């Protein structure tokens, strides 16, 4: 390549990148740096830019004594655990069914998947109605002669209600990923298992599960990350209540920043969220060698 051609390519490279790069700097890179700085500052928004005070690791120390933060963290872990386990299990069952010869496969796939495209706000509205005092779920329970709780205001049932909403939305997504993985399992493996006289369960346990483990791995990572960020259903349905029983990190961050205007503390908590996601992902990358087959 001549020097001129190389210079032209370099120039083209920068020019093609430029529009996106400007936006990257303005809306991602600078905010990231600014947010890091705020995480170590104390700042009430109402005091203006001059009111920013360096606070060292003060924000992170405050978290330990902040019951809302501690409960948010615990609730986040509870939500994530159940939402991920149930979404994956439901998604796998649906994918296994769709992977067989059955009637109406295309329609069924659409039915399983459609909740995924519905917005969290709309789903929350539906759940609010379904779970209201005289809603269908309460009526069903009354049929069994049991007095139903006020689901979303009951410390015992509010969190399961939020979890069920998340599972309903995400199960179809897991189904889709699992289905793609199942279709990639070579038929010969099952035929070999047939020759060995393996039972259906043995085939599932020793052929299917190991062969789709990369999909499971991908799903655990993406679903854990998205579950950690749960916000809309909590903000709309329970406002973290009753008490603090359904409060989660993003909701606590939202309240701290936009209702109490404590921008520094909110930023610090946002970075804790990042650190959690990061650590969980790293641990899974490390652990995958033991159970994921490529």
């Amino acid at each position: 390549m001549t020097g001129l051609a190389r210079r032209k390519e370099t120039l083209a490279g920068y020019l093609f990148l430029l529009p996106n790069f400007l936006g990257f700097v303005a809306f991602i890179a600078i905010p990231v740096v600014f947010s890091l700085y705020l995480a170590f500052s104390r700042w009430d928004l109402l005091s203006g830019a001059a009111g920013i005070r360096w606070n060292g690791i003060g924000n992170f120390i405050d978290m330990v004594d902040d019951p809302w933060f501690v409960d948010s963290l615990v609730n986040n872990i509870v939500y994530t655990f159940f939402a991920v386990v149930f979404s994956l299990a439901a998604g796998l069952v649906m994918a296994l069914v769709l992977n067989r010869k059955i009637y109406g496969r295309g329609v069924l796939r659409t039915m399983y998947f459609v909740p995924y495209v519905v917005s969290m706000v709309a789903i929350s509205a539906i759940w609010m109605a379904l779970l209201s005092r005289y809603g269908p779920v309460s009526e069903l329970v009354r049929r069994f002669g049991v007095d139903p709780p006020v689901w979303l205001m009951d410390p015992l049932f509010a969190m399961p209600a939020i979890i069920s909403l998340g599972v309903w939305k995400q199960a179809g997504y897991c189904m889709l990923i699992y289905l793609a993985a199942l279709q990639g399992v070579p038929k010969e493996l099952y035929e070999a298992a047939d020759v060995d006289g393996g039972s259906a369960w043995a085939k599932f346990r020793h052929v299917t599960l190991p062969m789709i483990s990369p999909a499971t791995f991908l799903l655990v990572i993406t679903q854990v990350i998205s579950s950690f960020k749960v916000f809309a259903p909590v903000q709309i349905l329970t406002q973290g209540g009753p008490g603090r029983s359904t409060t989660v990190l993003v909701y606590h961050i939202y309240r701290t920043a936009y209702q109490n205007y404590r921008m520094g503390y909110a930023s610090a908590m946002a970075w804790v969220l990042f650190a959690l996601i990061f650590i969980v992902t790293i641990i899974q990358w490390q652990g995958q060698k033991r159970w994921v087959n490529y």
Partner: protein
Amino acid sequence: MKHRHQRLLRTSVISLLAGVVGLFMIMPLVWMISASLKSEVEVFQYPIRWIPRTIRWENYREVWAGVYPFGVFYLNSIKVTSLSVIGMLLTSSLAAYSFAKLKFPGRDQLFLAYLATMMIPPQVLLVPRFLLFRNFGILNTHWALILPGIFVIFGVFLMRQFFTSIPNELSESAIMDGAGHLTIWARIIMPLAKPALVSLLIVSFVWRWNEYEEPLIFLNTKELFTIPVGMTLFMDEFETRYSLIMAAAVSAILPVIAVFLAGQRFFVQGVVTSGLKG
């Protein structure tokens, strides 16, 4: 013969069970549609009457021509979603061409910087963006939603992956013929990437359309609200008048369902290949 019958029976039974599961999955949506066409009294009749005694289209009129301008929320959502998605596809595919097909100093380091920020949750960016937008005077305008919507690293990443899979011979022979990079991008790469572009388009459309946190935080003038935040106004206003809330929910969901059903193949493709975003 008997064997075949048995298999047929088995397939039928499994299909039936699968159908029951499918009905269970769409039941909340069917209930929503049914409730949206009922009178308030009928909404909570039990056992559920799936087909309303009299269909009340008035619920929709009340939503669309009532206290809040639902039509305006619609236009806002269409404007914000389409501008950010188009801007995203355009700037992402340009940047992706640069990352995938051109050599220049600093390219790999820059791409690494892009990748590094991909794991940062958007919640980290909400506070600084809020402050930035306030200083630029674009807080409480649609730009506060459109601009962050354009610069989504994920789009660059996905397009780059796809462009890398396109053989270089195609563009090299075009260079021999004296074509510039803009021509190659527009005439060779983009047409080849059409399926990937459509997938990204549909997936991003659905994500942007459903976006809730950004408009919630960056907007406070009701006339500027997009549908998800607009929805919450209805929920506050109508409180327990669920037939109206469900009519609003149906109206909010309809475009997304339509886009999904129309481009299902591409949407599924996009979701499966991207995999990365929950």
